[in-house]
């Protein structure tokens, strides 16, 4: 029995197999409509996350399974003081697989250590969110036809953005991927990402503060939100905030084949004027998230 807690739990071959399975689901949805009949997914969401929870639930329903669970800690036994370990043991009696979101880092690992059914980490604080990374990888694969030999720009909050760290880790395992890390000085990738992911893999990367300067070479642009609360100085935030908002004029020198991704929710970092641009992929990304979660549920439940 396997769980998915961290994207590094999966080998490159397993990621490729999941992507291939998701693509097959997209092409032949009817063949998968009953694959999880009589199986139950428990969505244990200790904090609200409508998009991720509904994506998991839609994924299970489209596989013919059913869904139980809760969407906030207050409506669960956690409000009475039950531990994550005990909740995992109890839910194992009712469901076949768990998707857990929790504000505490490592909570899904505690669940996996105590559950007798697979556990999927659906986001644990600022730590991991592996199904978001799988979503990103499927989107890039569908848009580019490959996951190797390309230049990926990551823009915005690269210090606290867990989705960026996971994406760097996952894509640095593919050959010929170069990264351009675009952020203000205050929000550059942290040292542990630099040493454990970038330097350890030997991947080629460079850092810049200018989105405009980096734009012409990018095949993929992964946008994240620059949040006011991350800055010590209000003056720095005001100075930098508009630099990392993607507007149509900033795309003038971009490749026609560029793919723009964003983990969502978006606030103002991508202008709505970009939404109609064929290079905008962030809503396709949401749809891809459902398909890759379907593939993951099948894999963890060992359903062929």
């Amino acid at each position, binding site marked *: 029995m396997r769980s998915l807690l961290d994207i590094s739990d999966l080998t490159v071959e397993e990621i490729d197999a999941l992507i291939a399975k998701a693509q097959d689901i997209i092409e032949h949805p009817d063949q998968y409509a009953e694959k999880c009949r009589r199986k139950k997914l428990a969505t244990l969401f200790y904090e609200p996350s409508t998009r991720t929870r509904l994506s998991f639930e839609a994924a299970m329903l489209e596989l013919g399974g059913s869904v139980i669970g809760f969407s906030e800690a207050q409506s669960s036994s956690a409000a009475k003081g039950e531990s994550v370990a005990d909740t995992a043991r109890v839910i194992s009696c009712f469901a076949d697989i768990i998707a857990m979101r929790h504000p*505490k880092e*490592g909570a899904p*690992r*505690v669940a996996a250590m105590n559950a007798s059914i697979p556990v999927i980490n659906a986001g644990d604080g600022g730590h991991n969110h592996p199904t978001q990374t799988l979503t990103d990888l499927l989107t890039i694969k569908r848009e580019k036809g490959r996951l190797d030999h390309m230049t990926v720009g990551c823009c915005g909050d690269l210090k606290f953005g867990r989705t960026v760290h996971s994406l760097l880790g996952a894509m640095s395992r593919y050959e010929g991927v170069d990264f351009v890390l675009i952020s203000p000085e205050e929000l550059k990738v942290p040292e542990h990402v630099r040493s454990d992911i970038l330097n350890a893999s030997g991947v080629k990367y460079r850092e810049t503060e200018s989105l405009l300067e980096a734009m012409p070479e990018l095949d993929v642009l992964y946008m994240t939100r620059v949040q006011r609360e991350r800055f010590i100085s209000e003056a720095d935030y005001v100075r930098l905030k508009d630099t990392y908002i993607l507007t149509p004029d900033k795309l003038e020198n971009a490749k026609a084949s560029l793919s723009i991704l964003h983990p969502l929710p978006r606030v103002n970092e991508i202008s709505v004027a970009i939404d109609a641009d064929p290079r905008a992929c962030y809503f396709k990304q949401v749809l891809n998230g459902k398909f890759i979660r379907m593939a993951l549920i099948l894999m963890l439940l060992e359903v062929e």
Partner: protein
Amino acid sequence: MLIGTIVDGIVIDHIPAGRGMELYGYLGLDKLNCEVALIKNAPSGKRGKKDILKINEVIDLNFDLLGYIDPHITVNIIRGGERVEKRHPDLPDEIRDVIRCKNPRCITSTEQEIQHIFKLTDRENRVYRCAYCDTRAK
């Protein structure tokens, strides 16, 4: 400084200077009824100074813990007044319930009764990370 000769017991030598008391606590030596001596800042040829622990009884030692403190520590087992064994602990792949995660966002900060587990992620630099949240051990 004179410390009584051990007949049957353990001498933990080459403890990094200043960490003997920490090790004393980790090993639970305060709970022993036998004689235990902690020598601080003893002269050391290699390091200038070192700490030494002498335990006047052969007890089960947590070698993973010693390896985590410093794999250069030497453990001498004494029987009948003679050293019968000399061991260096290995750097353990994992340590359980020795140190606690300092990350306030880690599940170990709220979940009762779970083991505090740290895994060795970089042997060369002796880096341990929390098995739950990946925070580096200080």
